[in-house]
C-alpha cells in the first residue's frame, strides 16, 4: 500500500507543464481563436516530447506508461487549455486500441502521423472528427455530429471519462491560479482585493475542493490500471467530483475578477468554456451520478471503513 504518484510520471508531467507554460500561453489561445483553431507546429512539439506515444508500448516506439501516468499528463493539458486533440488520440484511443488488440496503427500514432477521433453513443458529437460541424461554446473545440451507429463500449467510455476528469482538474487548478494572481494585484478600497476575507474564503473553498478531488482521480486511474471490477465506480466518482470542482473554480474565479471576468479580453473564459464542455463529455454529471448510486447504494459495492480500496 503506497499512495504516492510514481516519481517518473510526476517528473514527466512537470516537464510537460513547463513546456506548455512556455509555448502555449494565452497568446497562443487567442491566435488559434483568431483563425484555424489547430496548429501543426504545436502538434509537432507535442510529438517531439513523445506525448503521442505516451501509452504506446515501447516495442511500438512509445513510452509504455500507465493510465495513471497518462492522467497526470491529461491534467497538464487541461491546465494549459490545450486545444490540440492529444488527449483523445493518445490517452483515450490508444489504450482502447491496445485493449482490443488492434495494434497496427500504434507506431504511426506514436509518430504523430495519425489522429484517432472515436465516437461513442454517450456523446452527441465527435471531437476533431469529420462530418457536419457543430458549434461549441468553447471556441477552440472542433465538433461534428456523431454517426448514428456509434458504439457504446464501456471501456472506451471509462477511458474518456477518466481523461476528461483529469483535464477538468487541471482546468480548475489553472482557474484558481488565475484568480489568485488577479486578487494579488487588483486594488480597491486601498488594498489588494485578495486581502478581503470574502475573497480569501471563496478561493480557499476552491483549494479545499481540489485537494479532495485529486486523490479520487489518482485512485480511479490506478483502479483502471489494476483492472478492478469497481473501476467504473471510481471513474464516475472522479468525473463527478472533478466536474463540481471545475464549476466551482470557474464561478469563483469569474466573481473574483469582477466585470473583467465577464469579458472576452481576460483569459479566464477559455478555461471556463473548456470546463463546461468537458463536464458534459464522456458521460455527464447525471450519467456518472447514476452509476455511483447504482453501485454504492444498490449494494454491489461494499461500504464502510474496512473497504476503502474495494
Amino acid at each position, binding site marked *: *500500500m*503506497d*499512495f*504516492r*504518484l*510514481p516519481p517518473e510520471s510526476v517528473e514527466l508531467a512537470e516537464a510537460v507543464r513547463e513546456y506548455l507554460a512556455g509555448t502555449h500561453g494565452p497568446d497562443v489561445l487567442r491566435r488559434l481563436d483568431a483563425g484555424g483553431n489547430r496548429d501543426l507546429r504545436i502538434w509537432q512539439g507535442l510529438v517531439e516530447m513523445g506525448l503521442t506515444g505516451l501509452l504506446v508500448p515501447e516495442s511500438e516506439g512509445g513510452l509504455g506508461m500507465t493510465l*495513471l501516468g497518462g492522467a497526470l499528463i491529461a491534467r497538464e493539458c487541461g491546465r494549459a487549455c490545450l486545444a490540440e486533440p492529444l488527449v483523445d488520440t493518445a490517452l483515450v484511443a490508444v489504450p482502447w486500441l491496445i485493449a482490443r488488440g488492434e495494434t497496427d496503427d500504434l507506431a504511426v500514432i506514436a509518430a504523430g502521423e495519425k489522429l484517432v477521433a472515436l465516437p461513442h453513443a454517450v456523446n452527441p458529437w465527435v471531437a476533431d472528427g469529420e462530418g457536419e460541424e457543430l458549434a461549441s461554446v468553447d471556441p477552440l473545440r472542433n465538433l461534428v455530429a456523431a454517426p448514428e451507429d456509434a458504439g457504446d463500449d464501456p471501456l472506451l467510455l471509462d477511458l474518456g471519462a477518466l481523461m476528461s476528469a483529469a483535464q477538468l482538474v487541471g482546468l480548475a487548478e489553472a482557474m*484558481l491560479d488565475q484568480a*489568485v494572481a488577479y*486578487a*494579488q494585484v487588483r486594488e480597491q478600497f486601498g*488594498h*489588494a482585493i*485578495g*486581502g*478581503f*476575507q470574502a*475573497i*480569501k*474564503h471563496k*478561493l*480557499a*473553498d476552491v*483549494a*479545499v475542493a481540489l*485537494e*479532495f*478531488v*485529486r*486523490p*479520487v482521480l*489518482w*485512485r480511479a486511474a*490506478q*483502479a483502471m490500471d*489494476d483492472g478492478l471490477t469497481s473501476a467504473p465506480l471510481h471513474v464516475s*466518482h472522479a468525473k*463527478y*467530483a472533478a466536474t463540481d470542482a471545475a464549476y466551482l473554480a470557474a464561478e469563483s474565479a469569474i466573481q473574483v475578477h469582477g466585470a473583467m471576468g465577464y469579458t472576452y479580453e481576460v483569459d479566464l473564459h477559455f478555461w471556463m468554456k473548456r470546463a463546461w464542455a468537458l463536464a458534459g463529455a464522456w458521460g455527464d454529471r447525471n450519467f456518472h*451520478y447514476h452509476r*455511483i*448510486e447504482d453501485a*454504492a*447504494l444498490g449494494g454491489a459495492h461494499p*461500504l*464502510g*471503513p*474496512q473497504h*476503502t*480500496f474495494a
Partner: protein
Amino acid sequence: MDLAYTPRQQAFRQEVREWLAAHVPAERLVTLERKDGFDQHVAWERELASGNWGMVTWPSEYGGRGLDLIEWLIFEEEYWAAGAPLRANQNGIFLLGPTIMEFGSDEQKARFLPPMAKGEVIWAQAWSEPGAGSDMAAIKTTARRDGDHYVINGQKTWSSRASFADWGFGLFRTEEGSQRHKGLSFLLFDLNAPGITRRPIRQLHGDPGFAELFFDEVRVPVENRIAGEGEGWKVAMATAGFERGLMLRSPGRFQATAARLMALLRETADRASPGLREEVVRLWMGAQAYAYNTYQVAARIMAGGSIGAEASLNKIFWSELDRAMHRAAMHLLGPAAELQTLPDGSANEWLEGYIFSLSGPIYAGSNEIQRNITAERLLGLPRVGAG
C-alpha cells in the same frame, strides 16, 4: 503507486478485527461527556491497553507496537468499522503524545508516554481563555518562575473533559509583560494540584463536556515544561498541526458514519427527496475522498515528507463533511429526528452526532481561521489587519 495491502498488512487487519470482535463492549457506553460515561470510556482505554492497542504507532518502550502509518490507518478502519467507543484519551495519544515525541526530553518521554498509552493518565487541553479564543496569542494566564517551579495564576476555559481528566497541558505566559506569541511556554500540570478549581460547563446537549479552570498560585515543577522557556508557541503550533492534520480525525470515523447514512437512506428511500438522496451519495463520496487523501498524506510522511498548512484543508473538509452527514440524517429521520430514543428503542445517535458535529467547525481552530490560513499560506494572498 500500489493500492493493494501486503499479506502482512492483511494479516494485521485480521488480527485487529478479531481482537475487537472479542472485546468491543456489546452495549453502547454512556456519553463520554458525563462522569459515569467518562469512567466507562477510561475502562475501555485500559482494556485496549491490555491488548497493547493504546497507540500502535509508538515505539514499544513507550507502550506502542512500533507500527507505521498504514498499519495505524488499518487499525483505525477496523476500530470504527467495529463500532468501538470514542477515545477518552484522544487529546493525550493524538495530540500531546506526538508533541512530546517531537519536543520532549528522554526523561519526559519515559515519564509521560507509557501511562498515556496505558490509559492510566487522561489528558485535557488548556489553551483557550475568555479573551483568547481564535486569537490564541492573546493568552493572559501567567506562570511566574519561582526557583525550580512555575506559579500559575489566571483562567482557562472550554477545556474538553477537564472536569474528569487527570492532567492538563497548555500555554502560559512565562515572561512578565511579554506580548502575543513571545514569552509563552508549554506546561504540563496535574489537574489535582492545589490551587486549581474546575468548574464544569454544560454543553449544547446538556452534559458537562468541558470545564473552566481557575489557577490560584498553582505550583508546577520546571521539569514539566516541554521545550525551552518562551518556545511555547512553536510547540503549540505543532500540536495544533497534529489536531487538524493526520491524527485526530482518521477517515474510518467518517467512512463509518457514511456507511450508516447510506443504510439509513435505504431504510427511508420511499420518503427521501431526490435531492437528499444525491446529497447522501455525494457525502459517501466525500468520506471516500477523505480516506484517499489521508492515505496519500500518510505515504508522503512515511517517505520523509511532512504536513504543513495543508492540515487546514483537512480540518475544513472533515468537519464540514461530518456536519453535512449528520444534517442529512436529521432530514432523513424527519419527525423522529427530535426524539432522544428512536421508535425502534435505540438511542438517537444521529441527533447526538449532529449536535457534536456542530462543534467541529469551531474547535481545533475555527474554519474561518483555517480558510484564512489556506488563503494566506497556501495560496499566497496578502494579510490585511487581523487576517
